[in-house]
């Protein structure tokens, strides 16, 4: 049951203060932390938050579980890089083109897929995203096919002759990522506190009831998809520029679509902070598993000798099983925390409060 109004207000003012502090700390982060690895992880987390939060607008708020969001991600990535590499258009214009491209394909995909409901919509969204992947593989003149596109150099960003940044370090990507994160959170907040948010959630809870209450399903589902797609393309553009290389298997794959959905499911669907928590858990987790941090730590601490059988197992086998471990952890979280990590802790707090009362 929902707590009283005064209670939620008290929590939100605390959350507001905390958010301001966190944002301020994030702005100062690159000044005090020089480690490029830390910056790298932060940028990955930002990209994942943008991906997750954008999906959340369609999946979490509107209840349309698209497992084809790689199409919009890839559209942003490809448009930006193609324009930059082959047409010499700087990426800060290319990003807009990417958003426009994502919007156009979202409207096309929406007009096809939203005729279907539930699991059929999910399947259609996967199928459409696959069409884009296969097209990108085969339209070699435009996309370079399976070879992918490698960026040579990002032109420096200048305003009136002064160089703002030359993109030589990770710092400009860090701030761009942070800016995109704040933008997506702002958009989500605005949606949640407007007519759109009410209509999206009504559609999620019961389409037929929403329809009978004067909500046009076609208009509002497509609106949700359009917003979601545009923001997802931002994540794609940033990823492409940051990593400097894209090919169909990285930015248009089903794996990517699934990982976008996972960010939200793990963190908590249909909430502003869910995707943030999801990204904060999943990115470091997958990095730690990939670099075999745990096994290395055991060996370094001297608990396990590198020459022993177990040590050998850690370095030789476990390091290659990171995808398996990641998968198992995800299953465990979904089994025991069906509302995501955020939902789990909220429920726990509510239970504690009930016991205290």
């Amino acid at each position, binding site marked *: 049951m929902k707590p009283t109004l005064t209670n939620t207000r008290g929590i939100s003012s605390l959350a507001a203060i905390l958010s301001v502090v966190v944002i301020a700390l994030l702005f100062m982060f690159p000044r005090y932390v020089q480690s490029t690895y830390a910056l790298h992880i932060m940028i990955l987390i930002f990209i994942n938050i943008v991906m997750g939060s954008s999906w959340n607008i369609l999946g979490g708020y509107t209840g349309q579980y698209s497992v084809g969001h790689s199409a919009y991600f890839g559209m942003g990535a490809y448009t930006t890089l193609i324009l930059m590499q082959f047409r010499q258009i700087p990426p800060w214009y290319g990003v807009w083109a990417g958003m426009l491209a994502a919007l156009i394909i979202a409207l096309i995909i929406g007009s096809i897929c939203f005729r279907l409901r539930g699991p059929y919509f999910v399947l259609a969204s996967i199928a459409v995203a696959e069409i884009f992947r296969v097209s990108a593989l085969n339209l070699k003149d435009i996309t370079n096919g399976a070879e992918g596109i490698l960026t040579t150099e990002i032109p420096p960003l200048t305003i009136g002759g002064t160089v703002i940044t030359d993109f030589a370090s990770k710092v400009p990507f860090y701030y761009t990522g942070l800016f995109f994160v704040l933008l997506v959170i702002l958009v989500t907040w605005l949606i949640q506190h407007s*007519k759109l948010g009410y209509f999206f*959630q009504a559609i999620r809870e019961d389409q037929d009831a929403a329809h*009978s209450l*004067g909500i046009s399903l076609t208009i509002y589902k497509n609106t949700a998809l359009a917003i979601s797609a545009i923001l997802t393309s931002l994540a794609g553009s940033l990823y492409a520029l940051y990593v400097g290389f894209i090919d169909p298997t990285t930015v248009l794959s089903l794996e990517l679509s699934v990982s976008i959905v996972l960010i939200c499911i793990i963190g908590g669907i249909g909430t502003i902070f869910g995707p943030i928590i999801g990204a904060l858990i999943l990115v470091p987790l997958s990095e730690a598993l990939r670099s075999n941090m745990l096994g290395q730590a055991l060996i370094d601490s001297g608990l396990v000798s590198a020459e022993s059988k177990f040590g050998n197992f850690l370095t030789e086998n476990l390091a290659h099983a990171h995808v398996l471990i990641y998968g198992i952890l995800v299953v465990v979280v979904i089994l025991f925390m069906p509302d995501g990590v955020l939902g789990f802790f909220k429920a726990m707090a509510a239970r504690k409060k009930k016991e205290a009362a």
Partner: protein
Amino acid sequence: MAILEIKHVSKFFGGLAANSDVSFELEQGMIMGLIGPNGAGKTTLFNCITGYYPPSKGEVVFDGKTMNGLQPDKVCKLGMVRTWQKVRPLAKMSVVDNVMVGALCRTNSLKVAREMAMEQIRVVKLEQRANFLAGGLPIGERKKLEVARVLATQPKLLLLDEVMGGLNPAESEEIIQLILDIKKLGVTQIVIEHDMKAIMRISDRIVVLNSGEKLAEGSPQEIVSNPDVISAYLGSE
């Protein structure tokens, strides 16, 4: 003046005629009872009237405009809205948010919508529940929520599909009073109901459906003494 005219409406599902050639008119401000045995086609008729199914034949005219081919959301905007036999609360939203969704059909401002919603919540007497999640309400309150939500869309015509189904006598009585209160607000209503005592009390006119066809139409007194109706309900000798 008739606010709703059903003209020779038929609805076929394959070879099955769920409604065949149903016609009647509804005057502004009155309550029409729609009764009939299970499977008579009452809910199908509701679906045809409110745009969920296009009628296979015939025409629905509401407020002088033909409804054929209009989607339910357009129908709602024009002032005709229905409730569901199986209640459909927006479970993870609070009661007031549920009713606000209805109110937002008429306004863009959340503040105005909230005021409109609270007004309807008071009409159905759910004030103490306003901030509770709709999914946690007992059946009686869910039915009231359903009514508050459709009232918030400011309808001219309300179609109530078994709002008393599954309620105990005390709760049914509250709903009966609610329907009579809504009538006083000047809202025309069509009520599907199985409880004969209740339907006789509240209806100005009654239409009886049987096997998809209109069996009888008249005042409650005429209906109870109609031999065709009696045989449809009790079986003939």
